[in-house]
């Protein structure tokens, strides 16, 4: 009897031991820096070394600088454009491919191609395509129609749209594939039943397809918003936040503060602010997720 108890204790210990490496890593990489970041955002920092407690000074400086409202406005513009451009195309393309009887696999492979390229390659490739002189692909096309070269990334009003086009180009194949696999999971009988009830193609789209994938769509939208809100790589690689701060997102501002301008305290305070905003969105995502799973 005693041996059995000891054996149980030992197997419990082994289980904890196997779990430990992952837990320590999560602690070191996620929880510790997160807590540290919030705590240190109330301190004055000189370079990367901590000086003294300074209360809300960092926050006041961040919120009162003209960069913050600008970056927040830009980030919301990123979210708006990526939603406008990025929501319908993958959905429609997934539907269209699902209808095909000719060249179906060919379309799937060709359209998936951008998703295979590393993100940095896509960004640099598009940077060249947007090039302001005559060597860029888009200006080559303009020249074919006899128009002058256009500075695609040099106009404050459209630069975010241009970056979002690049993001959509490399992001939509993945989303499209997700929708496509869901569409494949919808049973043929549902469509046939709707057809017998007299529903045409549009009727079947509204009454069969949309209810069947509505939950996934909602989740994906929220996920996309959370993802785009954190956009940093595109402005960093393609524009450097320019022209004149017109493409600066909050995450890029965070990077600028910490690694280019030496305002580490400000960047930690900004990080905490973004964290709070995103946690609200994430809680909403969780809530939605629960709703969707209950309806399945």
């Amino acid at each position, binding site marked *: 009897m005693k041996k059995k108890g000891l054996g149980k204790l030992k197997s*419990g210990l082994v289980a904890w031991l*196997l779990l430990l490496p*992952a837990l320590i890593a999560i602690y070191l990489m996620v929880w510790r820096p997160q807590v*540290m970041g919030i705590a240190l955002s109330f301190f004055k920092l000189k370079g990367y070394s*901590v000086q003294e407690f300074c209360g809300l000074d960092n926050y006041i400086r961040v919120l009162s600088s003209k960069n913050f409202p600008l970056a927040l406005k830009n980030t919301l513009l990123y979210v708006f454009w990526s939603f406008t451009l990025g929501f319908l195309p993958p959905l429609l393309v997934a539907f269209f491919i699902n209808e095909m009887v000719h060249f179906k696999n060919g379309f799937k492979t060709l359209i998936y191609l*951008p998703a295979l390229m590393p993100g940095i*390659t896509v960004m640099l490739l598009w940077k060249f395509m947007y090039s302001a002189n005559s060597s860029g692909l888009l200006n*080559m096309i303009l020249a074919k129609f006899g128009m002058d070269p256009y500075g695609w990334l040099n106009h404050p009003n459209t630069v975010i749209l241009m970056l979002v086009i690049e993001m959509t180009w490399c992001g939509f194949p993945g989303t499209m594939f997700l929708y496509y696999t869901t569409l494949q999971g919808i049973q043929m009988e549902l469509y046939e039943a709707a057809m017998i009830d007299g529903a*045409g193609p549009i009727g079947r789209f509204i009454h069969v397809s949309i209810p069947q994938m509505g939950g996934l769509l909602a989740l994906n939208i929220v996920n996309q918003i959370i993802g785009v809100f*954190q956009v940093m790589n595109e402005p960093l690689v393609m524009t450097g936040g320019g022209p004149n701060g017109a493409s600066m997102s909050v995450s890029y501002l965070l990077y600028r503060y910490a690694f280019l301008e030496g305002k580490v305290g400000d960047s930690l305070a900004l990080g905490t602010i973004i964290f709070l905003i995103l946690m609200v969105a994430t809680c909403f995502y969780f809530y939605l997720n629960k709703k969707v799973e209950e309806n399945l």
Partner: protein
Amino acid sequence: MNRFDNKQTTLLSRTELRTVKGQILYWCLFAILVIVAGVTLFPCIWMVLNAFKTPREIAAGNTFIPENFSLKSAIEQILYAWDMLEMERSIVNTLFLSLTKCAITVLCSGFAGYVLSKRRQKGMGVVFTLVVWTMMMPGSVRTVSTYLSYLSFPFIIDDGFDSVTNVNVLNTYIPFWVSAAAGSFTLILFKNAFDAIPNTLVDAARIDGCSNVRIFFQLMLPLAKPTVFYVMMGALSGPWSDYFTPYLLLSDKSKYTVPAWLFVIESKTGVTQNVYMMGLIFASIPPAILYLFFQRRMSGGIMIGAVKG
């Protein structure tokens, strides 16, 4: 048009496709897809074609297809670009990093997923909730605070920010490895995949005297193959696309991975735009190979007939 007769009923059905209106609609959709495929392909084709042009031809920008193109000149240009880009070192680094990260991910997340799925102890419910919350926490806001924590990374004991036992791990691969072990999403993927394996199988193996390690390698991993391959592909291809982490953490350029290297050599002398385009092509090849290798292996169930009765 007998291909249409076998079509599954979706939005367009067989009967509708026999009408003229249905035919027109179908071919309209087909045309739209051709355009979409064109939009996705066009930049890639342009990238490949530009890699084989001369710098002067690119700057002029009035030819789409390279003039004076021949097989011999193409090979010469590939070799010239390879010499100019000096990517050998970064390729070795990326290979090393992707292999080690893959092993660490499968071992750490895999074992943790196994324990949470099949060896649940008291108190592990809380752990699992914590892991789920970890997954949902936005990563980008931690960039600066993780960077600070790398400056004095705790080993053995963690007693604060400026402790003597802490070590500066910047300019090493340690942060990459630890973050590979900290994948909360992969942990949950593993747990879900292992949940689908019947407990009776594990119990049978235990009665036969299998250790946890053996159960994991000989039972869990083979039975959860699609998930294992999915995770492996993610871990292997990660270093081939992440330019930011190496760029930020490594000061020694000889430790750079391919994406970070590409990012910094844009202004290097001799790297003209055609050479650079060739570099982009080189950098896209390994992830494409990985995808082709894992694509078929990631789908399909294998649970049939494992437990009888």
